[in-house]
């Protein structure tokens, strides 16, 4: 039973990353109509940013949790201003191709300097050790990742669904021209939205640094799984992305316990099943 709970926890942690990343993808797709293939590379940049802050500037985990998403978010906003904005009005596929190119560049540069092996990032002192919950041993850092991701996801959901800013954002998604007529700066809003989505990816990167080590290709395979998550959940609903992300993480964790051979593939198999039964995805509207 211990092993089962441990795998469930690993599943919840992976689910946190799926949720944070698919949430960012959904937010970006809503505003920019672009599937951000660079999301995995930006997640990796978040982790590297934390690593540099610690090893170059001596800045620890807690400030990195805020600084890294901001730095990578600004990098994302520069990408949006200099490249992505020129794709408005073109077929969606060009956005996918452009961001794929950006991902190749970013990952290639990091691979040149850091190879493919992992760099260690220590767990902060406050979160070291673990608790005995009676039925299992819970490493505190892992518990923290799950709880904190959940809080961030719900905060993002609240920002978009319940605040005035979010209302403007959703309105601009539906009809940008009309929203501009009301005097709202839609291009700036698009840039900030991309920054927000990218910041969420970088945050996930910082959170994963102490667990998964910091590697140039850490986001490359992950983003494909997240795409499958997005296909399953659909990108129409923020809450849908969050729930699907966590649920698939847990299912993957269970598979690791009951049938480890399939743990790499279970998300893709589920995607196939969902497509056969309900082609629009669980929460999505028709594409």
């Amino acid at each position, binding site marked *: 039973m211990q092993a089962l709970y441990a795998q469930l926890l690993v599943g919840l942690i992976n689910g946190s990353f799926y949720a944070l990343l698919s949430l960012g993808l959904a937010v970006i797709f809503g505003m920019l109509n672009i599937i951000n293939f660079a999301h995995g590379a930006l997640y990796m940049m978040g982790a590297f940013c934390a690593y540099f802050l610690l090893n170059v500037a001596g800045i620890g985990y807690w400030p990195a949790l805020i600084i890294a998403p901001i730095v990578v978010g600004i990098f994302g906003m520069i990408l949006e201003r200099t*490249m992505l904005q020129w794709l408005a009005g073109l077929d969606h596929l060009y956005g996918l191709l452009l961001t794929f190119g950006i991902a190749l*560049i970013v990952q290639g540069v990091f691979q040149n300097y850091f190879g493919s092996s992992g760099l260690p990032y220590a767990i902060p002192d406050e979160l070291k050790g673990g608790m005995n919950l009676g039925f299992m041993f819970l490493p505190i850092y892992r518990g923290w990742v799950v709880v904190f991701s959940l809080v961030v996801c719900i905060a993002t959901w609240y920002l978009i669904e319940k605040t005035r800013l979010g209302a403007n954002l959703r309105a601009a998604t539906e009809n940008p021209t009309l929203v501009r007529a009301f005097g709202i700066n839609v291009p700036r809003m698009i840039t900030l939205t991309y920054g927000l989505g990218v910041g969420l990816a970088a945050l996930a990167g910082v959170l994963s640094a102490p667990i998964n080590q910091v590697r140039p290709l850490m986001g490359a395979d992950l983003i494909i799984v997240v795409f499958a998550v997005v296909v399953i959940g659909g990108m129409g609903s923020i809450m849908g992305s969050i729930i699907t992300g966590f649920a698939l993480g847990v299912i993957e964790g269970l598979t690791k316990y009951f049938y480890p051979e399939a743990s790499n593939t279970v998300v893709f198999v589920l995607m196939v099943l969902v497509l056969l039964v309900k082609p629009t995805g669980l929460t999505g509207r028709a594409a």
Partner: protein
Amino acid sequence: MSALTDDTLPTSPRAIRDEMIVFAAMAVLLGMVPATGIYPFFVMQALCFALLACAFNLLIGYGGLLSFGHAMFLGTAGYISAHALKVWGVTPELGILAGVVGAAALSVVTGFISIRRQGIYFSMITLALSQLLYFIYLQTPFTHGEDGIQGIPQGHLFGVFNLTNPTVLYYVVLAGFLGGFLLIYRTINSPFGEVLKAIRENEPRAISLGYKTDQYKLLAFILSGTIAGFAGSLKVFVAQNASLTDVHWTMSGEIVLMTLVGGLGTVFGPVVGAFVIIAMQQYLAGFGQWVTVIQGVIFVACVLTFRRGVIGEIAHYFRRTL
């Protein structure tokens, strides 16, 4: 949504004449390669990828479907052909047939699943399916995991053509490429191809005209996957191995890049693109991961400033379709 290509003109007799002239020139030039002393291995490899990119282009350029998983057909056909040749010891023609049939079967299944969604979702689904296959091939014993299947015997095609002779092999690969190319060309200019273009331009309208668009898309997908598989089987004889790199998503990305560089939706673009990218990899092989970076830069540059690709720009300049 703007169309991917600006070739909305119906196929005119003049366009067909132009394309026939270019095709003849291409066939003659490629036929002369062994006489020039150019390293035939390089050209053979490029021809396999050119056919692969043409198959991919059939889907994106004429059906508007961007497959981000076409490496799965290359790799699957490669593994099956390699296994048949090495372990079962079949003749080359049967080895190719086995690979092509395998790729066709795979494209029926994956096509049925992936055409259930359109646009960007279609791309993500094909990518996810090819990643699924990658993990399966990583774990099943017959692919030999990270090592791949190596030292594949080339044998005699139809019992006559000795494929261990580089010149003979070159002409066999060239014949395969030209045959596949003509099949794709014929498809594009058939009534079936016209319906595909109609679906690309405006699917709801094609449906309202009574076309069962899903069947057309599925058939295009199967055709594309099967020809991609044929390219994969040919490549086994050239490289004499089948490995995981052929199923990896980076390979799918390279196929997209070749077609984009040459020109999406142009007849000859994918061929030019394949030669450009393979040549680049050859010359920059010593630069390690910088090749990836350069590929990324080409992607970005093409999308931002050069969306028609090499052939698309030339055709646009002369106001022709090529």
